[in-house]
């Protein structure tokens, strides 16, 4: 969940919701203020205008007008009254002159007694003006109604805000999900590419938005990396290729020299040179082998093979070697675990793993080989009780020529695991390392469910 909120897409969506909320609230607030102000200004203007127009009218006319006005005022919002010079009421529907300047301007009174009802107060606007005869004319308007109106507007706006927010949230969530799903796909693809599936590419849609453009760029970069990789590999393969004959020739010449010379000093030097050339030949052979596996047989040539049988043979083959180091070697196999594959290659891969396990396990240690079907996936495991591999080195052990700090003391080409990984890859298996605590576990696990199994059960020739 925390991961979800941390993703940039979700953050963007939340920012979007926030922005929408702020903008909508601002617009609504502005509308509300405008309505309120306009309403109030209108009330004031009417009152001031009325007061200006009626101030000169004779008293009788005024009284008649007031009466008409009050009769029409069904909602009881109008106030009108005439006061004498002593500010006593002459007629009208208000008894006391409120304390406002007698300047003919509208004045707001927050608490004015409600007409006909004691103890109730209301906001109102009043205009008081001194008539030419010295009397004071008072006009007023209750603001209760406009208050109510304002409240209605408030409610309406508030009610409108909620759906807007929900909508913004929904849209934000939708886009966040869409974007995050695309980003997740991209992330997963990149993870797989880093795991070695160099042929994968990021999805690019025809719509060509920013993410598509970036994906296309990344794909271009991957193509370029692939090209360089192939080139580098080609170069090293070519070097290995070209080194073979000279190595063989030098080896032969040294051997010949060794036999024809009696000079002990010279012989010692030649012997040393020969052992170095032997090592070079091992490396060259392994490199070429790796190249062959990587560009080599396609799965169309695969046959049905039994991993259990292969590992049992290898167990018997390696057991004496383990015994010579007082290593206890054990084997756990189920009944046949069949896959479509190349038996020789699988033997080679597993023999590399077992050879390594024995190499890196001290005396009196143990090495275990197991073949199993796990959730329908064939898996071969080679465990040992040796030194294991430092966490910092775990990513590198499958690289060409990589040798662990401890591995440098043990002879070998440094390509065994690369070859095993290439073979695993060819069979759609993953070769992985995990900790055996102490020691190492190398496991070759099929990426998919067993392909040959059920078919083979049915098709296996009788006998």
């Amino acid at each position, binding site marked *: 969940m925390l991961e979800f909120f941390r993703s940039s897409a979700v953050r963007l969506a939340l920012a979007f919701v926030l922005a929408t909320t702020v903008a909508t609230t601002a617009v609504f607030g502005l509308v509300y203020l405008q309505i309120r102000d306009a309403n109030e200004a209108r009330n004031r203007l009417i009152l001031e205008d009325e007061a200006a127009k009626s101030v000169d009218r004779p008293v009788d006319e005024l009284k008649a007008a007031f009466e008409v006005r009050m009769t029409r005022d069904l909602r009881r919002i109008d106030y009108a009254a005439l006061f004498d010079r002593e500010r006593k009421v002459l007629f009208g529907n208000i008894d006391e002159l409120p304390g406002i300047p007698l300047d003919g301007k509208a004045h707001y009174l927050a608490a004015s007694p409600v007409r006909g009802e004691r103890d109730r107060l209301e906001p109102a606007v009043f205009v008081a003006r001194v008539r030419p005869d010295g009397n004071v004319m008072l006009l007023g308007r209750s603001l209760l109604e406009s208050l109510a109106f304002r409240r209605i507007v408030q409610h309406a706006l508030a009610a409108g805000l909620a759906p807007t927010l929900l909508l913004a949230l929904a849209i934000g969530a939708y886009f966040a999900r869409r974007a995050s799903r695309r980003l997740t796909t991209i992330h997963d693809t990149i993870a797989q590419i880093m795991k070695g599936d160099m042929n994968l590419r990021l999805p690019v849609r025809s719509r060509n938005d920013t993410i598509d453009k970036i994906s296309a760029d990344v794909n271009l970069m991957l193509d370029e990396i692939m090209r360089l990789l192939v080139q580098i590999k080609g170069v090293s393969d070519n070097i290995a*290729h070209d*080194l*073979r*004959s*000279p*190595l*063989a*020739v030098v*080896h*032969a*010449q040294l*051997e*010949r020299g060794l*036999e024809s010379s009696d000079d002990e000093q010279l012989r010692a030097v030649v012997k040393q040179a*020969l052992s170095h050339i*032997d090592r070079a*030949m*091992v490396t*060259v*052979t*392994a490199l*070429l*082998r790796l190249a*062959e*596996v990587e560009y*080599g*047989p396609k799965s169309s*040539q695969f046959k049905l093979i039994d991993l259990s049988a292969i590992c049992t*043979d290898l167990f*018997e*083959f*390696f057991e*004496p*070697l383990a*015994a*010579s180091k007082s290593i206890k070697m054990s084997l756990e196999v189920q009944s046949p675990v069949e896959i479509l594959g*190349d038996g*020789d*290659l699988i*033997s*080679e891969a597993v*023999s590399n793993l077992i*050879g390594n396990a*024995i*190499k890196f396990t001290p005396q009196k240690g143990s090495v275990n080989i197991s073949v199993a079907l796990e959730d329908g996936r064939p898996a071969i495991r080679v465990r040992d009780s040796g030194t294991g591999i430092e966490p910092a080195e775990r990513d590198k052990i499958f690289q060409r020529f990589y040798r662990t700090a401890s591995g440098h003391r043990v*002879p*070998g*080409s440094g390509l*065994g695991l690369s070859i095993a990984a290439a073979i695993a890859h060819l069979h759609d298996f993953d070769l992985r390392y995990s900790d055996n605590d102490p020691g190492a576990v190398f496991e070759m696990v099929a990426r998919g469910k067993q392909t040959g199994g059920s078919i083979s059960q049915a098709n296996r020739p009788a006998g």
Partner: protein
Amino acid sequence: MEDEGELAHEIRIELERLGYLVRAASIAEAADAARVGDAAMMIMDRIVFGEDSLKTLEVLRKEGIKVPVLVISALSSIDEKVRGLKAGGDDYLAKPFAMVELAARVEVLLRRLEDLRTTKLRAGDLEMDLIEQTVYRGETRIDLLPREFKLLEYFLRHQGRVITRAMLLQEVWHYHFSIETNVVDVHISNLRKKIDVRGTPSLILNIRGAGFMLNAHA
């Protein structure tokens, strides 16, 4: 047949040193030599000047010419080995190889025609019965595991010849890849413990820098 002059030269020197008469030849020359029965065996490079010599080999085999052929090649994959053997090659050696490896294989190939039908193999007082699947050293019966039996059988069939580790891997265990441990040596030493008699020299000798040899008269 070899398109890399120096390597051909070395092969020639090595084999001549062992007492063979060696002639370098083009594919056509080699084919002619094989047809007239001039060669006891042939060493063929897979690719000679861009030409695949396996085609010639196939033609020769179709003509019924049985001369043993060792195919050497830059291609080391098992598929290529299988192709080489299917085309009629008797053995297949991938470059780079040591000359002892080549020499050992040549000697084995030259001896291959003999003793295929025998049911008993002997070396001094060691006797192997292929039908009964038993081994006796003098009067003492020796119990061998199936793989040890095969290993010993291979040595008995190639007595007095240098046997390399790669040959044993290939012929006894059918593993066509190199193994960077001394596991073969351990198997040999286990076999020695079973067949050797205390106080006498071992039947199977270590040949430095090459491999092993079973020699009853050592």
